[in-house]
């Protein structure tokens, strides 16, 4: 094991190309209140990933046909900026973005107390400024902070992280270089307090044992990220932002 063609991404001591061990996530920075005109916002720098989330609302939902009588609608957009990737991303319709927007909205709807705001809309805008690997996870995490920064009541905070497999070894939080040779990707969105899952995707190839290892790495990673989220919110609300 440990070889995929002639590219070895993990050395014999289990150290990855950027010096991490199998269960380590990349360095993470989180700031809240970064978009002055938004009702709430956050910036997540996760490795080289750079993601902004802004929240507007609750506001009246229109056109009226999108209104729900008993709750607020979460209108979530995930988008990659044209300069976020090595080859420029053309703006416009994109099936991948539509799907990520949908599953992100469904994850956040689970924790936002939408029933407090019938007939209204809460806009959540996620913009990827620089993409490495794991932008959907960084986006969900940033959106959680932005919703809290906007003062939207939530039952829990969602943290999202992905484990994967490379050179036949399960590792946590693949970076771009690893992802190019990756054999599986298991992103999960986990509630900080309850430990429940609100977001789950996976593709690739994982044996039952590998699957369990990847699952466990994700579960173990959320604690430190949750602390950074809370610090960012405290700092923003302490008026230092």
């Amino acid at each position: 094991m440990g070889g995929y063609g002639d590219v070895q991404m993990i050395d014999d001591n289990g150290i990855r190309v950027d010096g991490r061990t199998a269960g380590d996530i990349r360095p993470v920075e989180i700031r809240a209140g970064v978009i002055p005109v938004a009702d709430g916002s956050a910036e997540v720098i996760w490795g080289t990933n750079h993601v902004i989330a802004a929240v507007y609302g609750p506001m009246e939902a229109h056109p009226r046909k999108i209104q729900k009588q008993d709750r607020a609608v979460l209108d979530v957009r995930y988008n990659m900026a044209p300069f976020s990737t090595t080859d420029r991303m053309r703006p416009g319709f994109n099936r991948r973005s539509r799907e990520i927007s949908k599953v992100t909205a469904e994850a956040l709807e689970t924790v936002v107390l939408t029933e407090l705001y019938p007939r209204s809309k809460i806009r959540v805008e996620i913009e990827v400024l620089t993409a490495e690997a794991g932008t959907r996870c960084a986006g969900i995490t940033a959106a959680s902070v932005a919703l809290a920064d906007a003062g939207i009541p939530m039952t829990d905070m969602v943290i999202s992280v992905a484990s994967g497999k490379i050179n036949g070894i399960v590792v946590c939080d693949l970076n771009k270089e690893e992802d190019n040779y990756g054999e599986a990707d298991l992103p999960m969105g986990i509630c900080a307090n309850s430990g429940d899952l609100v977001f789950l995707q996976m593709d690739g190839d994982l044996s039952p044992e590998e699957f369990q290892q990847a699952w466990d790495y994700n579960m173990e990673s959320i604690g430190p990220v949750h602390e950074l989220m809370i610090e960012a919110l405290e700092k923003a609300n302490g008026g230092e932002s």
Partner: protein
Amino acid sequence: MAAPPVPELLRAHLTELAKNDERLDGRGRFEGREVQIETGVLPRAEGSARVVMGDTIVLAGVKFQIMTPYPDRPTSGGFMTSAEVRPVSGVHWEAGPPSPAAIELGRVVDRGIRESGCLDMSDLCILPGEKAWQVILDVFALSDDGNLFDAFATAAMAALRTAIIPGERFDVGEDRPLPVSKKPMMCSYHRVGGRFVYDAVRREEIGGAERIHITLGDDDHVHSLQKGLKGAFTADEFAEIMDHARQRCAELRNMIE
């Protein structure tokens, strides 16, 4: 067709049924509807299947085109899945560009097949750097009474495993079967009346909450997962449906050639 159910009343009814571990149509929690699979049903497709699961009926058709390989993979062909769920298949499916729900359907079915590695892309090369086969899988709903995901995934595998690469029509060699090395199968679960059930009908979908789609390959390897809709689930709940999926995917795998 029955009048469209009022979600709140339906939800209450489903919760009541769940208390006695019952379902709308009398099935057990993890009992699937009967599955009928027929292949070779579309004369203009190079591979095809019809799958009937209760009142859910779907088609899958495989077509081939010749493509120029991408510069960074000169010896690879391509694979594409298209699911445009047209309004023929139910009053709740509307005309227009693909809805987010249809996009998700197509992408989840696609990933289960693609990520299993069952299609060897290098086998689709005709002339390196110049010509390769593109496999196009069109899944098409005729009647949606719930669980289009599993119906599509089953029809897709049945169609792919009987598909013939039309070398003669394109004047690039002889016709030959499309090699499909594995049989990834999908099982879908919906939270209905509080607990997860397998193979939900449409009214269970309407009155239910989140759903989880699991695609497993040979030897129980996991190839694709997707959680959809609002809702949270525990690790224990997931372990329970994963157990059932391993057993059921094996059964479905045996129904495919």
